[in-house]
């Protein structure tokens, strides 16, 4: 009923506009819902502007929603009630699967841009064999940011094993610097050491994701998986953390890393954007390496996918919306994005190369990709991610809970999610 009313209003407005403007032209307005990150807004505005220059008959209105859990709920509520915008931005991977794409979204099979989009991305934004999304940004990685200046001053080299890493930490501590920053005030940051360890876990248990989804492999009973939790205990017990690890925030972490008070910060590469915003002068001194394993021959990056643009089944302007998605998925759209946003990793669109002046942290990532030493994060291989992981990792990282206990607790947390999703065998 509201839609009818809106339709009538819209057509009335269109009529008036027509009478006023004279020349006959069909105007379409598309609504476009994005999250509230400042980078996202800048990127969306640039894309909309570039698209409007080519298609003056289409107006795209940007609307923002909160991020995090509140944002997930906004998306799900609006999809469930048929009130979603014509185009919306949301995660790929496990969160995308939760949306029940085959019921709530419009597939984009046959979109010309799809031919140029990397398979790795298509696999995490498809359901039932059909593609639903185009990437919004570059891929991201998880690992350790480090301060190159401290490394130079102390004569350290990038560690290939966990033991070397801890030895470096001891030297840095002896030099009176904070060796490793942890920032549990923003509890999501406490998960990074566990999540970025997935490349190493997959190297020793190649079918972990499948077995885990099938309720056969567990964190608590898989030694290589349990190791991910033990890393958190290691860094806590070694006494190499910043004194205020429980009270420091993500911004504090970036600050001490950037100004050279601290040497290491385990983080996702999206931090490059924040460093660029708050500490641009320091970017030249910030490097990046993969989270080391116990074995020097196993050394690679865990990769995260950017969010995607989707079209809901309820959209009244599917064809026009597809036109915009096709533009975003093209090399031209990709260049527009790179023009306004800091690159966080390699591009997912063929023919859209990184600009020459990427920050050193990004340059440091490229060899891993060139040698194929990467693995997708677990959330792109399995639909199951327990919601309480960040609280559990804060406990382990603060010495409040032992790794084995934490892993068992997380396994139980995961069970709830699997049951909610109706995955067989749970």
């Amino acid at each position, binding site marked *: *009923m*509201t839609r009818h*009313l809106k339709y009538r209003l819209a057509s009335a407005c269109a009529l008036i506009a027509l009478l006023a403007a004279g020349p006959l032209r069909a105007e379409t307005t598309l*609504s476009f819902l994005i*999250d*509230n*990150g*400042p*980078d*996202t*807004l800048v990127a969306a505005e640039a894309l909309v502007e570039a698209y409007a220059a080519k298609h003056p008959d289409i107006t795209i*209105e*940007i*609307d*923002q*929603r*909160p*991020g*995090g859990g*509140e944002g997930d709920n*906004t998306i799900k*509520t*609006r999809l*469930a*009630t048929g*009130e979603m915008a014509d185009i919306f931005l949301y995660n790929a991977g496990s969160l995308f699967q939760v949306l029940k794409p085959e019921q709530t979204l419009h597939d984009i099979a046959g979109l010309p841009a799809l031919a140029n989009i990397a398979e790795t991305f298509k696999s995490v934004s498809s359901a039932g064999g059909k593609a639903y999304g185009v990437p919004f940004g570059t891929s991201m990685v998880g690992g350790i940011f480090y301060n190159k200046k401290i490394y130079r001053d102390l004569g350290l080299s990038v560690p290939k094993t966990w033991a070397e890493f801890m030895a470096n930490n001891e030297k840095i501590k002896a030099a009176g610097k904070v060796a490793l920053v942890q920032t549990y005030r923003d509890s*999501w940051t406490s998960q990074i050491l566990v999540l970025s360890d997935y490349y190493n876990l997959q190297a020793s248990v190649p079918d972990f994701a499948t077995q885990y989804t099938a309720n056969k492999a567990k964190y608590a009973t898989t030694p290589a998986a349990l190791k991910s939790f033990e890393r958190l205990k290691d860094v806590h017990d070694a006494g190499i953390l910043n004194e205020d690890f429980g009270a420091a*925030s*993500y*911004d*504090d972490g970036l*600050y001490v890393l950037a100004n050279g008070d601290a040497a290491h910060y385990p983080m996702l590469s*999206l931090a490059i*954007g*924040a460093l660029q*915003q*708050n*500490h641009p002068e320091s970017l030249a001194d910030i490097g990046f390496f993969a989270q080391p394993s116990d074995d020097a021959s196993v050394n690679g990056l865990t990769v995260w996918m950017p969010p995607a643009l989707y079209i809901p089944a309820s959209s009244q302007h599917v064809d026009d919306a597809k036109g915009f998605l096709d533009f975003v998925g093209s090399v031209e759209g990709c260049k527009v994005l790179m023009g306004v946003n800091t690159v966080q990793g390699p591009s997912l669109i063929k023919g859209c190369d990184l600009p020459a002046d990427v920050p050193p942290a990004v340059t440091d990532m490229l060899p891993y990709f060139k040698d194929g030493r990467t693995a997708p994060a677990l959330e792109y291989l399995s639909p199951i991610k327990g919601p309480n992981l960040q609280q559990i990792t804060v406990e382990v990282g603060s010495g409040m809970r032992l790794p084995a206990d934490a892993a068992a607790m997380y396994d139980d947390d995961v069970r709830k999610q699997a049951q909610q999703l109706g995955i067989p065998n749970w």
Partner: protein
Amino acid sequence: MKQSRSLASGIVALIVATVIFILPFLFIALQAVKSKSEASRLNFALPKEWLFWENLVAVVEARNYQLLLAYFNSTVITVFSVSILVILSAMVGYVMQRRQSRWNGVAQVALLMGLMMPPAVVPTIGLLQSIGLFKTMTGMILIQVAYNISFSTLLYRSFIATIPRDLDEAARIDGAKPWQIFFRVILPLLKPVTVTNVVVQSIFVFNDFTNPLYYLPGRENITVQLTLYNFQSTYTSQYNLLFMNILLVTIPPLIVFIFFNRQIVTGMTAGAVKG
């Protein structure tokens, strides 16, 4: 002697209040005039450059002057829903307090349920869609009335007890109809509570963000608290603009309070505790 003692206790109270209550606001105001990277440090250090005007303009201009639209929308919702709330809940509270009947028990439990139960979002959206009120200001106003009426009624119900029944009787003997007794006799006497209620409800409604988020989506429907999301996101926050925005959206309710605060004072004439 008395004068100087009250002056002294006033000064002590002023100092304590300053430390406990003002310091946090200094913090907020300080962040609001810093640059983005200075504000990301979140401390009491003075800014190198005072960017009051720049940040103010950035916040007001953001998203095509969205803040101004938000002021307008929030004000409309607040004025209408609080007016409806005050009248309806005073009526309910009045009858509940004055009349002993089994309906009172029902009303009492219904009211408490309103305070104790969180509303169900998705079924409510379905309902609003079916009656054509979803994404409309009318729908949002009625939702605010429905969600806040319990609190408001409870406030009235207890205060109406302080108005003697003799007044109702006298008016009735003079031939006044029930609605005349209520609107001409009782409601004017409830002024201190009404003022309190108006202040409290206006703030609740004006500062609400969950309900507009779900029941009033769409960029033309923005409300003030939702503008804060423009500057605070999961991974990058622009604290200078966030705090400037917080200051700006706090001003309208502050003016309401300062204005109505005088009304409370007038209501109490000589002051309750004489020194």
